[in-house]
């Protein structure tokens, strides 16, 4: 049995009258890529924010990397990299300066971070642009820089919120492959949310489908397909599966 990196129990978040996350219980195992699926407004981002201690649950518990996000948020943020949906950089600073700033916030000494920044920019394919101001970057480049930024703290877990939003097909595939390789090479656990089904299908080991704050299904895609559609490997698309759940939900 692999260690559970994330475990939630009855997580609930209520904004006024709106129930954003409804009695959510799921777990993510070490080293896997977990795809978080669901339409806009289904509570994916809220769940992620709770896990990082950036917002507090109304009810329920969560454990991330062995820490409680309500009381030990800083400890979690030290080892969890988070790429928000709309990643922001200081446009008048270069990519290198932006990464340096994040490195300093993570208490990485300058001598150490210099080398690391070079490495990371190389990995995400931006080493040719490292001294250009981020304001001149395309959306795809910013997103890749976001990945580099997330990796600067040597995370155990990486949380990506809609990493491919607004990217063209080629950019999406590049990014997805990058994430996949990183996860496999460095053994980083990845939790990512998306509503692009084929991306999720391409890399996720397990998925969780969220609809209106509830997780209606979780598990490996094949298992879910077998259960729900009664088909074997290769004879379904995630789309069918997703629609099935969506209609029922």
């Amino acid at each position, binding site marked *: 049995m692999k260690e559970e990196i994330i475990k939630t129990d009855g997580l609930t978040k209520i904004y006024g009258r709106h129930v954003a996350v409804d009695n959510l219980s799921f777990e993510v195992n070490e080293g896997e890529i977990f795809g978080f699926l669901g339409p806009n407004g289904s509570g994916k*981002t809220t769940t992620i924010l709770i896990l990082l201690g*950036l917002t507090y649950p109304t009810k329920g518990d969560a454990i991330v990397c062995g820490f409680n996000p309500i009381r030990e948020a800083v*400890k979690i*943020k*030290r080892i969890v990299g988070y790429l928000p949906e709309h990643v922001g950089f200081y446009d008048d600073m270069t990519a290198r300066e932006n990464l340096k700033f994040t490195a*300093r*916030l993570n208490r990485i000494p300058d001598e150490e971070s210099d080398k690391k920044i070079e490495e990371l920019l190389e990995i995400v394919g931006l080493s040719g642009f490292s001294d250009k101001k981020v304001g001149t970057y395309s959306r795809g480049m910013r997103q890749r820089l976001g990945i580099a930024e997330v990796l600067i*703290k040597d995370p155990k877990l990486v949380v990506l919120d809609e990493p491919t939003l607004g990217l063209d097909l080629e950019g999406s595939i590049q990014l997805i492959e990058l994430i996949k390789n990183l996860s496999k090479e460095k053994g980083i656990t990845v939790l990512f949310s998306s509503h692009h089904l084929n991306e999720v299908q391409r890399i996720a080991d397990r998925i969780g489908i969220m609809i209106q704050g509830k997780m209606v299904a979780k598990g490996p895609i094949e298992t879910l397909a077998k259960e729900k559609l009664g088909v074997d490997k290769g004879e379904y698309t995630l789309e069918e599966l997703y629609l099935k759940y969506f209609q029922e939900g």
Partner: protein
Amino acid sequence: MQGVYTIFRKEVGDHFTSYRFIILFALILMVSLILVYMSGMSLKESLEGGVKPKFVFLLLFTSSGSLFSMAQFVAFFGPLIGLLLGFDAINRERTSGTLSKIVSQPIYRDSIINGKFLAGVFTISIMLISIVLLVSGLGLLLIGVVPGIEEILRIIIYLIISIFYISFWLGVAILFSVLFRSVATSALAALALWIFFSFFVSLGANVLANAVAPIEKDRATVEMIEKHVKIQRAISLFSPMVLYRDATTTIIDPTRRTTKSLLFITPMEKLSLERFKSPLSLLQSLLVVIPQVTILIAITLICFGITYTVFMLQEIRSM
């Protein structure tokens, strides 16, 4: 602390390289130099041949050549420094998406607000100190009188009070940048508050005093005028600008024995009176302004406290 320091460092760097800061600094320096030049020239003229009175050097800051004095200028224009350095501190980061990035780094959330506030205070201090030094240099050249130790101490205290005063406005601006999503709204709100406190409070104090204790032209008694002035004063004390002006003029003008205006004395009489009375010692001057200084420091801290609380309680979701 690492978080505060990192943010502080970045913010200070941003301030000093921004056009906003450079333009503001150049503008204030220019006006200050002109003001001190004018007051220096007129001082030089009036000192010609006569016995030099005590504290000539401080007169550079308090006497007005033909416009207004340096101290008045800082009282009026200083808030703008604080406002311009702070009005987009938080909401600019929010719109560009960098705020949600910073809060997901391993720092406490208050480091952000602390770092930004301290960076602003540091920038303000550097700005004021360098301007006062430059202006003093010019004054030295013009009137050729070396300031005594007490004068230097008075200028240092003046600087400290000024830094608190401008930091108060910085706090107001940062508060607005936390409250309002849009940069334009927070800038406008901050400017509106500045104008309100600078002009309308004293104007309103006048109107209210007229309404509550009118002075009848023909039958004006001393009691009537006294009541009128008291009410006017009480209301105008709500303005940080009045507090600051009262505090600093007493500090850099040793001949002032009270922060109240010398109402019943005509300008000529006042002048002759000041010639003959001996100046207050520094300690005495400080005692006179303790209430004002305390209030100034208190409102600065209260303002920062409110900003801090609002920011800590804000939902990250909306960031």
